[in-house]
């Protein structure tokens, strides 16, 4: 009998499918539509120390096989999250990944420290959000800048820690190696690609922030390459994502070296896409007599 269970840094996921941060809120909304407990886990909307209103103007734009978003980390802040949502999330049979972003080092640290007291499976440290002008972006581009924040957070964080990398990084492999060296338990990759759309009628960028983040099937081939490059160079496990929209895509990411895969944009194609992918993976395993995903993980 095939078993879709995977171990990620000592945490058991009943299957490798996780809903990606920012695309599933805190799980409540999709939870009303399908049985999210059939997934492996859920990564929360990116949280910051204080509540944020997010960006003004258009926040979503369609591109060929992709979308650009500029939500700008709208979120209720870690305190409200811990008070209002965490208990409910923990009541679910799901691995609970809390995604944390920030403006500056202090924000990250305070948010992470505050979360130490709560039950959480993983902190997913978003050093890569391209939307906040003064925030995420800068941390995730240069390895040595990122090192500082990873090191400080690692010192403070009592939870398992996975670092979410930006595909806009100068050298994503060295960034991942740095995370491993600094004691991260895993890598989540990739976040959105920095991109531009112009409203030619208005002669203005579509987004108030000018640049926004590209996700969806369009980016899959590049995200997959990055996961593979990193998987060849680090021993800590990877949550792979970027355009996954079918179980075949998920298997590609696993063969490229991912242990867990995350589904973001594809939930907008079909709210229960994550479920369809989890089922597809199981069927694939059974018909190919794969008993454990280890057998195909990283075989490229």
């Amino acid at each position: 009998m095939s078993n879709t269970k995977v171990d990620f840094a000592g945490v058991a996921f009943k299957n490798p499918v996780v809903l990606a941060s920012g695309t599933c809120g805190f799980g409540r909304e999709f939870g009303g539509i399908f049985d999210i407990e059939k997934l492996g886990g859920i990564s929360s909307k990116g949280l910051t120390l204080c509540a944020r209103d997010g960006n003004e103007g258009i926040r979503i734009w369609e591109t060929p096989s992709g979308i650009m978003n500029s939500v700008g980390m709208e979120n209720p802040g870690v305190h409200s999250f811990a008070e209002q949502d965490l208990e409910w999330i923990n009541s679910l049979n799901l691995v609970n990944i809390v995604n944390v972003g920030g403006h500056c080092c202090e924000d990250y640290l305070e948010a992470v420290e505050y979360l130490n007291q709560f039950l959480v499976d993983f902190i997913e440290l978003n050093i890569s959000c391209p939307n906040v002008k003064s925030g995420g972006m800068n941390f995730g581009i240069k390895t040595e800048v990122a090192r500082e924040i990873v090191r400080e957070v690692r010192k403070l964080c009592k939870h398992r820690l996975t670092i979410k990398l930006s595909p806009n990084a100068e050298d994503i492999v060295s960034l991942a190696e740095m995370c491993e060296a600094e004691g991260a338990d895993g890598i989540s990759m990739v976040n959105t690609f920095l991109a531009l759309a112009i409203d030619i009628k208005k002669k203005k960028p579509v987004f108030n922030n000018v640049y926004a983040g590209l996700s969806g099937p369009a980016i899959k081939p590049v995200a997959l390459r990055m996961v593979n490059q990193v998987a060849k160079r680090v021993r800590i496990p990877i949550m792979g994502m970027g355009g996954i929209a079918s179980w075949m895509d998920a298997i590609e990411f696993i063969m490229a070296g991912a242990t867990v895969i995350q589904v973001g944009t594809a939930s907008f194609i079909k709210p229960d896409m994550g479920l369809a992918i989890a089922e597809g993976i199981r069927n694939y395993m059974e018909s190919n007599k794969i008993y454990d995903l280890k057998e195909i993980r990283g075989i490229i």
Partner: protein
Amino acid sequence: MGKIIWNRQLSKDFFLMKAEEKNNAEMGQFYMLRAWDKFPVLSRPISIFDRDEESVVFLYKAIGEGTERFTKLKEGDEITLEGPHGNTFPKIEGRIALVGGGVGIAPFYLTAKTLKEYNPGSVVDVYLGFSDTALLEKEYKEVADEVHINVGGYIIEDIDPNRYDYVLTCGPMIMMRLLYQKCKDTRAGIYVSMENRLACGVGACLVCTCKTSGGNKKVCKDGPVFPGEEVFGIE
């Protein structure tokens, strides 16, 4: 997944389409429609024009990639309907004006019908503004008391808010804003139906946020219907 029952062209770019869908949807709600696999990525939000237990009717305007594809659908073709989503227009009574601009007229057929059913004593007048061709006059007349039509002009000039207890509106932002201004210092309470760009349609992604006096609200879940004051009162 539902089947198309019929899909009719009403004018150059307006279409009325009926699809199978068991539902108990209400006035003002919408569906996320999709008649393709993965391209384009997003489904399209379309309001409920009319419904019964087994089917929903949509009024849509062909403006781009997605709605153009809807125009190609024929009887028996499949379409994915996610919904009904969103809140509804309030169940109100009294003298009510429903004001639609362009394809913003869509939700007001079911709304007029529902409000008259709810209280047959209510007066429900419909105001429809079109840029070139008037549509569906006969249909709206069947469900409303008065139907005012304006082609090529400004429908809001035809309304005297003092005649009404409530004004419900849907259409271009500029129209809704002006109507809010016009109603502000009258007895009429105004509700607006917002048309932000959506992605998930269910409140999970925060791309549709609308600034309101009560803080950020999700158009897809907290809306699309908001008290006019909440949206335009803070501008």
